[in-house]
């Protein structure tokens, strides 16, 4: 699959990857199909998805996304620091 087709497919699935105007999508991916998941894995991670693994990977992907809106002025910790001011 061509990268452009992948981007369109990701947009359709609701994945908010950082590709121009598609950034805002970012909603949970209930509609992601097994075939879309297989394609994303192949393109982004370079790994295959055997059919038997698909339900677990999809479940893990859905469960472990963090889509909560966060104040964008909060500085992310590139280097984790356990010391904070209350």
């Amino acid at each position, binding site marked *: 699959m061509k990268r452009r087709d992948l981007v369109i497919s990701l947009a359709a699935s609701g*994945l*908010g*990857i*950082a590709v121009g105007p598609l*950034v805002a999508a*970012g909603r949970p991916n209930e509609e992601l199909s097994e075939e879309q998941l297989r394609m*994303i*894995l192949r393109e*982004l*991670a370079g*790994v295959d*998805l055997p059919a038997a*693994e698909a339900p*677990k*990977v*999809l*479940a*893990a*992907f859905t*469960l*472990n*996304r*963090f*889509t*909560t809106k*966060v*104040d964008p002025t*909060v*500085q*992310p*910790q*590139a*280097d*984790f*620091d*356990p*010391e*904070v*001011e*209350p």
Partner: protein
Amino acid sequence: MKNDLAFSSIADLAGAIRGRRVSCVEVTQTALDRTEKLDPLLNSYITVLPEAALSQARQMDAELDRGQYRGPFHGVPISIKDHIDTAGVRTTAGARSRMNNIPAKDSCVVRRLKRAGTVLIGKANMNKFAEGESGDNPDFGKIRNPWSREFSPGGSSGGSGAQVAAGLVPLSIGSDNGGSIRIPAALCGIVGLKPTYGRISLEGVFPRLYSCDHPGPMTRSVEDCTLALQVLAGHDAGDTTTARKPVPDYSKGLRTSVRGLRIGLDREYASRGEPEVLSAFYKATDTLRTLGADVIELTIPPYAEFLAIGNTITECEWAVAAADLYREHHGDLNVDDTADLKAGSIIPAVDYIRATQYRSILQREYARATRDVDVFIAPSYPLARRPFGEYRLVQGRKFTFEDAIRYTFPFDLMGLPAISVPSGFSDDGFPVGIQFIARAFDEPTAMRVAYNYEQATEWHTRRPALVA
């Protein structure tokens, strides 16, 4: 005499060795004899090093002959979780596929322990790749709890917990990214310290979760734990995440009373354990009040919020840490690890960044909630006994892995120091634990409260019948 040696504190052993009342070889031979006798029942080691250990012990005795003494760990036998690099000794991370992984150099932790004069007895069995708290390794077998071989010692540092409880060694080095030191400490009736993130170097430790991995000591007493932390703590040029803060004298102030100290308790957060765990926990709060501490009720951020960011952070960091492993040995990962790795490798970067932003928010909210107390307390593990395989129902509902790490995982995510000590026993004789959690780099206060509590109780003096 041999049992006395096996269950001696490190401070007592040090006195006996320095006073030449016992040789380093005798101490090491006792550890090896007990390992030969008991480890077939516990399966706590992946590798035992009898020749190397005796050779090291002879060297330590020779140094004493020349008047050289390295300090309280001179000639003290130890074990190391098998995902911490040891030069010339295979380091498997609990995976049979890594049986030929023989590191060329020691990890920072091992270098410091060697410099202190310890004698390495062997490498401890663990959950494969430090995943989970089952104590069940598919490649090297189930690790048995010395209090009952039918049950797990917990994990992932299960071999370390079993060895210290069984008197095979007085110190084992474990690691904790969701509770892997404190959970086996609780289930084995010993002391386990997860230090502040950055206090002990991760150099040469198999990476599982970059921002949550913490190596730390597992011992039979709080005092021994302070001695071990003294050796292990400090900046390491090989690990950029280690702090440059000075290392305090951890023994100083340990015995100072806790009178007037303020101890925080969140009843809702603490409420999800088995009745025996909660009963012991609330009795411990009574003991702390008797010692003169003020126990203050407060509310920390909900566990669900820690779990939400924790899931994303752990999934993404594991996907990076395990990428080579997957390429080289993908058949070696179990179905859950494989699913986590694949899911983690496609979770958008924006999710990970938002999760770390939200971690900052939770850190500040927790700091605000606990600003008026010196330490926060919680049970160490919700169950009084951890079966192999499926969990039992707890309070009438299905228990999950997320429930199992409820009391421990938030403090890995926030990088705060937390020490688990025994807080009682179930009716059928299983130990349970309580944690004392302090502010970042304030291990001294956590250990001071833990020490005072320990000394006011007798839980740490009990020994499993199997090994008595």
